[in-house]
């Protein structure tokens, strides 16, 4: 019997949780689960707190099943997962900052999102941040941020370099912490969906999609088929826009501006098509619990078909340009290599994981409608460098173009929303949606009257940011922007 089934068999199930099981476990089983994560028998999908409980979402490596394990913490403490499984470390530091839960046995107890600036900041966070040391002859520090040179989000990077070579990078994040999970508590589903859609602006569709699915799972709401297909259409358009933008931006950071100019045009064409089809360039608030906010008319369909034709005309010559330009490949090949072992350990999603051999895509492996009826392949590479992350994006663009075409060809007719059966009882739901950057997790606990008791949003970046620190080691300082852009982690999605 696989480790997760074994754990669940001995635990107390929570019947109001859908569509996957949640079970309350004891401290011993919690520790065993942490050990199973450390041994690679399970993958950590999320770890979050409430004032009196800790929860972890896990996936069994062997069975592929997922579940939430909960530990009641009446005295505000729980056995540390991060002590044996490093991907949990920053999540535990966040649980302390936001919910006061203490991870017993944790080695790194520094504050994370709490910079000592909140009215309720704890004393420890008000002290200067204790960066990790790097010692050696002739090492020097380079401190970057939080305000960066480009038009990007804020974060603080501390490099220790020996000459040009980076010996250690330490990230300090949390600058854009807006208190989203705090605002979620007590909000109704409409406001909750809006907040979810503003967690990470580039993934507004993915977040709204995951939030809606979690709410519908909790309430037992069946979404009309047309809405389900329109959601996937929006999700693929979002992926397309972001991948086009990223491919160009990565090349731009290798001083190859030509590609950036051309993919910038492609990205703009996608956004204008989204505006024409769904009334918003980023399709913000387009997905709502129960369905979608806007129907797609014939003009919208025609606009998207025209976009497909234009992308298929313009993109292949750009791929050839990337493939043929030796000076560009000289920068991307072999740079910022992430080992498959680390990608697996951290459960890294998206192009970061798939460029380093982690064969996982929520659309296929945690299949949700309408992807169960669509044909696509998941590109995988094992080289793990900047070049591999570019190629994964290129192949995903090709797959998304195919998916959009299939959706338009088979889009069912009918209504686009269903009423939400609110007011029966308190209930809980979990959903994972494959955003452009990886799997977005939303966990939702609804009160009896349908308001939000607790909502946790886990961005894929939580399991990618720490890997950037590993991938950059031994590279030159000048290649950091290139590596960073090839990861393109979210700050806002991470900082919440």
């Amino acid at each position, binding site marked *: 019997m696989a480790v997760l089934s074994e754990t669940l068999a001995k635990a107390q199930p929570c019947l109001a949780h859908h569509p996957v099981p949640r079970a309350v476990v004891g401290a011993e089983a919690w520790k065993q689960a942490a050990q199973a994560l450390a041994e690679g028998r399970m993958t950590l999908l999320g770890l979050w707190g409430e004032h009196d409980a800790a929860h972890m979402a896990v996936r069994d490596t062997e069975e592929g099943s997922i579940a939430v394990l909960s530990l009641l913490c009446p005295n505000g403490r729980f056995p540390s997962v991060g002590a044996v499984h490093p991907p949990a470390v920053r999540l535990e530091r966040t649980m302390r900052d936001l919910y006061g839960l203490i991870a017993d046995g944790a080695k790194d107890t520094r504050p994370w*999102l709490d*910079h000592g*600036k*909140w*009215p*309720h900041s704890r004393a420890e966070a008000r002290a200067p941040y204790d960066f990790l040391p790097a010692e050696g002859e002739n090492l020097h520090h380079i401190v970057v941020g*939080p*305000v960066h*040179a*480009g*038009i*990007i*989000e*804020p974060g603080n990077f501390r490099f220790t370099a020996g000459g040009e070579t980076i010996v250690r990078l330490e990230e300090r994040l*949390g*600058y*854009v*912490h*807006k*208190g*989203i999970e*705090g*605002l979620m508590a007590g909000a109704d589903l409409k*406001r909750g969906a*809006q*907040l979810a859609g*503003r*967690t*990470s*602006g*580039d993934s*507004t569709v993915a977040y709204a999609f995951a939030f809606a699915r979690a709410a519908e799972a909790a309430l037992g709401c069946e979404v009309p088929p047309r809405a389900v297909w329109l959601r996937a259409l929006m999700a693929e358009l979002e992926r397309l826009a972001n991948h086009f*933008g990223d491919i160009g931006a990565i090349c731009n950071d290798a001083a190859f501006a*030509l590609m950036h*100019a*051309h993919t*910038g*045009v492609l*990205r*703009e064409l996608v*956004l204008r098509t989204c505006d024409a089809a769904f009334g918003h*360039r*980023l399709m*913000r608030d387009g997905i709502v619990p129960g369905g979608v906010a806007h129907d797609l008319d014939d003009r919208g369909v025609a606009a998207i078909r025209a976009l497909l034709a234009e992308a298929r005309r313009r993109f292949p*010559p750009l791929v050839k*340009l990337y493939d*043929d*330009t030796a000076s560009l490949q000289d920068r991307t090949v072999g740079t910022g290599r992430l080992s498959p072992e680390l990608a697996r350990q951290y459960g890294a999603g998206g192009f970061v994981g798939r460029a380093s051999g982690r064969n996982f895509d929520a659309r296929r492996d945690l299949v949700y409608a309408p992807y169960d009826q669509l044909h696509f392949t998941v590109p995988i590479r094992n080289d793990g460098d900047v070049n591999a992350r570019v190629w994964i994006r290129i192949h995903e663009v090709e797959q998304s173009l195919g998916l959009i075409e299939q959706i338009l060809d088979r889009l069912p007719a009918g209504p686009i929303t269903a009423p939400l059966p609110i007011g029966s009882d308190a209930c809980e739901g979990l959903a994972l949606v494959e955003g452009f950057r990886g799997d977005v997790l939303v966990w939702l606990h609804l009160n009896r009257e349908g308001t939000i008791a607790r909502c946790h949003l886990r961005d894929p970046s939580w399991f990618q940011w720490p890997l950037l620190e590993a991938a950059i080691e031994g590279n030159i300082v000048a290649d950091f922007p290139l590596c960073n852009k090839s990861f393109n982690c*979210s*700050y*806002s999605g991470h900082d919440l």
Partner: protein
Amino acid sequence: MRKHIFQGMIHAPLTEAAPAPDDAALAELAQAVERTARRRLGRSLAIREVDAGSCNGCELEIHALNNAFYDLERFGLRFVASPRHADVLLVTGPLTQNMREALERTYRATPDPKWVVAAGDCAIDGGLFAGSPACVPGSIGAAVPVDLYIRGCPPRPIDLLKGLLALLEAQA
């Protein structure tokens, strides 16, 4: 690569005609811009973008200003890497408590004369995040003096462009 460059020479540009500056913004700015500054800067402004807690949606649309369709630099407007080189701070987000000090320091690092443009609904009053203890009440305006607000969630590139052109007109 030669093929791409050659095609770029023979095809008409994608760049669109300039929009008229936003009238309301123009009126708002007329008072903010001093005559002396107009003489010194001419028709060129260097912009430093500061994300003060945005979801990144505004940054995506600000980025778009540089693409071939909007081509911001044709107006003499350009983004710079340091506040030391900037005339304008373009600030987004509901101003998180964790970014307040960085924004204030960036403002102080920008030489006079300078203007602050707050872009996006969050930058006006906190938007959807208003009331969060993690955000500064009153948003950007509570920390630095704001000369122009551009609405939207996020503002469309064309609206950003209209606002920035108004800034240019007011000081030209």
